[in-house]
């Protein structure tokens, strides 16, 4: 069973990295958002440093949603999803494997790019560290919650916007605690650990609930 799980993760990674797989798209979008922001805000370095973490988190949230609409839809269109329904591997773990591969291909590059992009927004070293850590812990939550929207998008043609509309409300707690944890690096009364632990809890809950809900959605809609 773990062999099948691993094979599915590796196939999805391979597909994402091949031409047209779209693995780099999220980072490019992330870069675009962060580069454009200073031009819109103006050259106020203090202001940039203060709102920088929020901008980076919004950019990472939106970039994480890119490609989710095709996650199950591509498998549904070419018939793979039907064969995936006849495995010893339960559909919940199929969804989890695809989620993990999607996060490695799109979420992890965002985490790696974040420290570099932070420099554009005049973030202090302490903030950069906190931001990178919160993104590392928080982006899996976005991807795994996104599985739910991705599963519905497989049933409806042109589900791209549907994913954003379905998933965005679910990710608001992740955004709140992610930004809150990063903000503690600039001072304040709350220690970093408090919002960070809630963020980690949200992430763990999403990793369990996302695949289960996505599998249920796939079963209901594949008829």
């Amino acid at each position, binding site marked *: 069973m773990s062999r099948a799980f691993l094979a599915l993760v590796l*196939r999805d990674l391979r597909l994402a990295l091949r031409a047209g797989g779209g693995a780099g798209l999220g980072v490019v979008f992330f870069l675009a958002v962060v580069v454009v922001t200073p031009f819109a805000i103006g050259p106020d370095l203090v202001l940039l440093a203060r709102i920088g973490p929020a901008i980076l988190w919004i950019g990472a949230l939106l970039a994480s949603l890119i490609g989710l609409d095709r996650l199950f839809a591509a498998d549904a269109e070419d018939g793979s999803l*039907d*064969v995936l329904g006849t*495995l010893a591997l339960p559909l919940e773990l199929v969804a989890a494997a695809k989620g993990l591969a999607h996060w490695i291909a799109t979420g992890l590059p965002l985490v790696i790019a974040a420290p570099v992009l932070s420099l554009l927004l005049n973030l202090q070293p302490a903030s950069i560290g906190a931001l990178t850590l919160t993104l590392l812990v928080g982006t899996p939550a976005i991807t795994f919650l996104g599985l739910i929207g991705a599963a519905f998008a497989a049933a409806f043609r042109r589900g791209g916007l549907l994913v954003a509309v379905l998933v965005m409300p679910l990710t608001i707690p992740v955004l709140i605690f992610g930004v809150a944890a990063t903000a503690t690096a600039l001072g304040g009364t709350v220690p970093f650990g408090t919002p960070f632990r809630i963020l980690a809890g949200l992430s763990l809950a999403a990793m369990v609930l996302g695949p289960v809900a996505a599998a249920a959605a796939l079963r209901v809609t594949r008829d």
Partner: protein
Amino acid sequence: MKRLVVERLACRRGARLLFEGLGFSLAEGRALIVTGPNGTGKSSLLRILAGLSRPAAGALRLEGAAEPEDFAEEVHYLGHLDAHKASLSAAENLAFWRDLLGRPALGVAEAMGEVGLGGLERLPVAVLSAGQKRRLALARLLVAERPLWLLDEPTTALDVSAQARFAALARAHVERGGMIVAATHAPLDFGPSDALDLGAWRPASPTVEPAPVPA
């Protein structure tokens, strides 16, 4: 001894009842050829047998399986779609399904040789012809050991020699004690077979308490 048993099966697509009261049983070492006009529910029947959709009524089980009521793991489902990824090579696609389906049988190169795709392992599926893609999908049946093959128009896009070659592979599977349920319009010889004309099981027809097809 495995045996597929279907009792009082009904299938509804939207508001339309496609068939009801359908019952048959299929023993090891036999094939069932499902025929019938378009829209009588051949594909729907195969999807129900594969556990991919739920019947409106009735029961089905695979006697002799680890879980007789939930036997999706015993099934090779070959639908209209080939389930290939165009950007992966033929061998990568087949190796992936071999890892995922479990209970490995033939190796990737062997299976591709069996369906006449030897030497094309490294080509991306995107450049294969429709018939070659179908052959690769058929090779999936050979890389994992599963007793019940559910085939939906298996020979679409295949040339005459490939059809004969596949029929021979299917006969070998049946001889080894496998089972096949195939929806097809092409006259294929899968060895000892029963016939099921789904057109006769339409709700409007006077088949209220139908006799099972002799197994």
